[in-house]
C-alpha cells in the first residue's frame, strides 16, 4: 500500500455590503473541510475518507493503482453531532457535485495530490466552470451546523440536500410556477419536501458566496425539520406587515445567519458582474413598521439577545443555547401559533429577573410586554382599529353567539403582493369540552359589493393538520339572484377532535391570493360569523 495525501481548497469571493462580490479579494486558500474524499478508478471507489478542518486528507491505496482523487460536495458526520449535507444540481437530476483530479498511478511511494476548486471568474465574467460554488455553499452550511451544535452538541441534523445550479434564475415558468428542473425557481428558498434551492444565474443573482442568504434558508430548514414552524411562507420584504407566523420564521432565519457569521450586515449580491446588491444592517434600528408582524423586529430582537454589542435597550449577551432552547422546546410545543409571542414568553420564563429588560427590548419594537404565548393584551394594531386585534379571538364551543372576524387585504405590498400579509387570515382559539365530533361553521356577514365570499379554514393543534377549503356554492356565487344574502356563503365541516386547545385559522380565500391573480384577486374586507358546536 501507499499513502496519497494532500489538501483541498476552494476560491472564496467575499461580499461587500452594497457593492456585490469583491473578486479582487478572492481567498484561494479556504480549506475544503469535512468533505468526502475518494480514490476512484473509473466508476469504482477504491478508498474513501474525509477532509479535516484544514482540508487535509490521507488515503491508503494499492501500489501502482490507477485512479483519481474525487472530492464530493458532501459532508457526513456520524458521530455526535451528526449530519448529512449534500450540494446537488436540480437541473441535472440532482447530480451531486464533485471536484475531480486527473487519473494517475499511485506509484510505489507515498505521494501528495493537492486539489483546488477555482471560482471560474476570468475578469469579465465566469469564463471557466464555477467549481468553487458548491463547495463554498457546503462550507457555509457547515458554519451554520457547527454554530447550532454549540447549543446542542449531540444534535442529529436530518439529511439535507442543497440545490444549486448556474441555471437557477429569478424567473418562473409560463404558468407562474416554480420549475425546479429547468431552474426557473423564482428565488432562493426552502421547500419542505425537497430542501434548499439557491440561485446561480450569472449577471442576475448568484448565491454561492452570499453566506447570509444561504444561512437564512438553512434557518428555515432548522425550524421545519428540527422544531416547528407554522409559517405559510411566500414573498416578503423588510417593512412589510406580514402574518405573524411569517414574521417570526423570516426574522429567525435572518438572525440565525447574522449570529452564525458574527456579522449583522446581510448582503445579497445581484446584477451585472455580481457588482451590486441588496443589504441591510440588523443593528440599524431603522424599522418604519415595527411590531409583532414585522420580520425586521423579530430579527433585531433575536440578534440582540445574543450579540455582544450593546445598543439601545440591548443589554443582553445570552448564549445561543438560550435562544435555541426556546426554539427547540416551548416553540415546538406551544398550543399557540409560532410567533414572537411564545418565543419571548419562553425567553422570559427561562430568564427570570430579566423580565423588565426583555420587556424594554420588545417595547423598542412596539411589542407590548409578553406574558402568554397568545399575545394577550397586545395593543399594537398596525394602524387598523378594526381587523388586527385581538390576535386570537376566544370562542366558546356551543355558544349561540358567534365570533365575528374580518379577513382583509389592507396590508398588501407593491413589492411582495398580498398572499401572506397581516390579517388576511384571522385566528380563533377554542377547546372542545369533550373529545368527539365538532361542527365548525363560517358564515359570511359582510362582503364587498358585488362580490361573493369564499370562506375557508385550517385547524391547528400544535401545528396545522386539517383544512376545509370547499369552493363556494352556486347559491353563494349567484349574487344577482333575488333574495341573495351574504349568509349564502358558508364553509362548514365536521371533524373529530380531542378535548384540547385548538386554533382555527379563518380567511376569505381570495384575500390569500396574489394581488394580480388572474382568476380571483383579493376582494377585500370580508367578515364571517364563526361557530363551533358539539352534539
Amino acid at each position, binding site marked *: 500500500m501507499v499513502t496519497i495525501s494532500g489538501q483541498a481548497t476552494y476560491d472564496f469571493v467575499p461580499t461587500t455590503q452594497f457593492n456585490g462580490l469583491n473578486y479582487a479579494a478572492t481567498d484561494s486558500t479556504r480549506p475544503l473541510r469535512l468533505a468526502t474524499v475518494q480514490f476512484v478508478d473509473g466508476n469504482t471507489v477504491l478508498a474513501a475518507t474525509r477532509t479535516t478542518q484544514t482540508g487535509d486528507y490521507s488515503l491508503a491505496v494499492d501500489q501502482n493503482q490507477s485512479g483519481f482523487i474525487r472530492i464530493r460536495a458532501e459532508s457526513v458526520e456520524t458521530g455526535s453531532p451528526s449530519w448529512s449535507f449534500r450540494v446537488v444540481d436540480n437541473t441535472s437530476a440532482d447530480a451531486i457535485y464533485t471536484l475531480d483530479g486527473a487519473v494517475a498511478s499511485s506509484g510505489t511511494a507515498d505521494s501528495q495530490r493537492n486539489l483546488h476548486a477555482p471560482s471560474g471568474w476570468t475578469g469579465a465574467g465566469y469564463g471557466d466552470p464555477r467549481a468553487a460554488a458548491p463547495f463554498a455553499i457546503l462550507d457555509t452550511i457547515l458554519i451554520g451546523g457547527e454554530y447550532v451544535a454549540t447549543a446542542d452538541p449531540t444534535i442529529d441534523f436530518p439529511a439535507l440536500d442543497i440545490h444549486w445550479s448556474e441555471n437557477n434564475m429569478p424567473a418562473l415558468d409560463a404558468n407562474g410556477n416554480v420549475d425546479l428542473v429547468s431552474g426557473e425557481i423564482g428565488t432562493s428558498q426552502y421547500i419542505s419536501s425537497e430542501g434548499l434551492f439557491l440561485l446561480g444565474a450569472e449577471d442576475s443573482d448568484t448565491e454561492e458566496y452570499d453566506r447570509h442568504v444561504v444561512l437564512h434558508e438553512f434557518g428555515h430548514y432548522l425550524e421545519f425539520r428540527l422544531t416547528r414552524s407554522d409559517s405559510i411562507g411566500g414573498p416578503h420584504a*423588510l417593512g412589510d406587515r406580514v402574518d405573524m407566523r411569517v414574521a417570526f420564521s423570516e426574522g429567525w432565519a435572518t438572525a440565525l445567519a447574522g449570529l452564525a457569521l458574527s456579522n449583522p450586515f446581510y448582503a445579497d449580491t445581484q446584477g451585472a458582474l455580481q457588482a451590486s446588491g441588496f443589504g441591510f444592517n440588523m443593528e440599524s434600528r431603522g424599522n418604519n413598521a415595527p411590531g409583532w408582524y414585522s420580520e425586521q423586529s423579530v430579527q433585531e430582537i433575536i440578534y440582540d439577545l445574543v450579540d455582544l454589542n450593546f445598543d439601545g435597550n440591548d443589554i443582553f449577551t445570552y448564549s445561543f443555547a438560550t435562544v435555541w432552547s426556546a426554539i427547540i422546546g416551548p416553540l415546538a410545543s406551544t398550543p399557540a401559533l409560532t410567533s414572537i409571542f411564545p418565543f419571548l414568553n419562553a425567553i422570559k420564563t427561562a430568564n427570570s429577573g430579566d423580565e423588565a429588560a426583555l420587556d424594554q427590548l420588545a417595547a423598542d419594537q412596539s411589542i407590548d410586554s409578553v406574558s402568554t404565548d397568545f399575545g394577550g393584551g397586545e395593543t399594537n394594531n398596525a394602524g387598523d382599529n378594526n381587523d388586527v386585534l385581538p390576535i386570537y379571538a376566544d370562542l366558546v364551543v356551543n355558544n349561540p353567539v358567534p365570533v365575528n372576524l374580518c379577513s382583509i387585504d389592507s396590508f398588501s405590498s*407593491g413589492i411582495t403582493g398580498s398572499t401572506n400579509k397581516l390579517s388576511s387570515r384571522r385566528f380563533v382559539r377554542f377547546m372542545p369540552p369533550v373529545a368527539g365530533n365538532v361542527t365548525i361553521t363560517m358564515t359570511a356577514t359582510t362582503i364587498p359589493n358585488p362580490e361573493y365570499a369564499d370562506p375557508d379554514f*385550517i385547524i391547528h393543534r400544535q401545528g396545522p393538520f386539517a383544512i*376545509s377549503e370547499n369552493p363556494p356554492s352556486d347559491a353563494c356565487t349567484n349574487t344577482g339572484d333575488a333574495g341573495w344574502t351574504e349568509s349564502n356563503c358558508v364553509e362548514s365541516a365536521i371533524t373529530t377532535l380531542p378535548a384540547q386547545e385548538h386554533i382555527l385559522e379563518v380567511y376569505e380565500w381570495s384575500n390569500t391570493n396574489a394581488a394580480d391573480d388572474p382568476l380571483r384577486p383579493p376582494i377585500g374586507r370580508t367578515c364571517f360569523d364563526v361557530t363551533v358546536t358539539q352534539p
Partner: protein
Amino acid sequence: MTRLLILFALVVFALTAQSAPLSDHVPAGTSKPTSPIAISHRLASPPKVGQPVEVILSIGSNAEISDASLSFSADDPLAMIDPLDSIGLSTLSAGQAADVAITVLPLLDQTHYLNVTVRALIDGVEQTRSIVVPIRLPGSELRKTAGGTAGNNEERVRSFQAIETVL
C-alpha cells in the same frame, strides 16, 4: 320555494362535508428577503423569431427611490435593440411606478432570458433588484442542462475538474 330548497341542500352539504388532511395543502416555499425595489414585466405582443418585441417593465418601491438606473443583458440569440444596455430613471416617490419599454430581437425559436437589474438609492443607500424575464417563443424548449454523468453505482455526479498539484 326554490330558494328554500337550495338553502336546505346547502345546509345538508355543509353538515356532511369533512375537513381534509392538510397534506393536500402545500404551503409556499420560505424564501429569502426581497429587495425593496419592485419590478414587474409583460410583453407588448407575442414574440416571434426575427421580429422585434417590446418588453414593458414597471419599476417602483414602497419608499422614495432616486438615482435609479436600469441595465440589461441577454444571451446571444436575443439581441438588444433599444436601449442597448442601460437607461437612467428619474426619482420616484413612494408607491409611484415608472413604465419603461425596451425592445429586443429574438433570433431563435426558443426561450430567451433577459436579465434586468435596477439599482437605486433608497434611504441614502444603494440597493439592487435583479430579475430574469423569460421570452418564450412558440417552439420553446427548456434550456439544455449540463447533464450529470452516471458513476459510483449509477449515482449521478456533476464533475468539475480540479486544479491539481502533484508532489
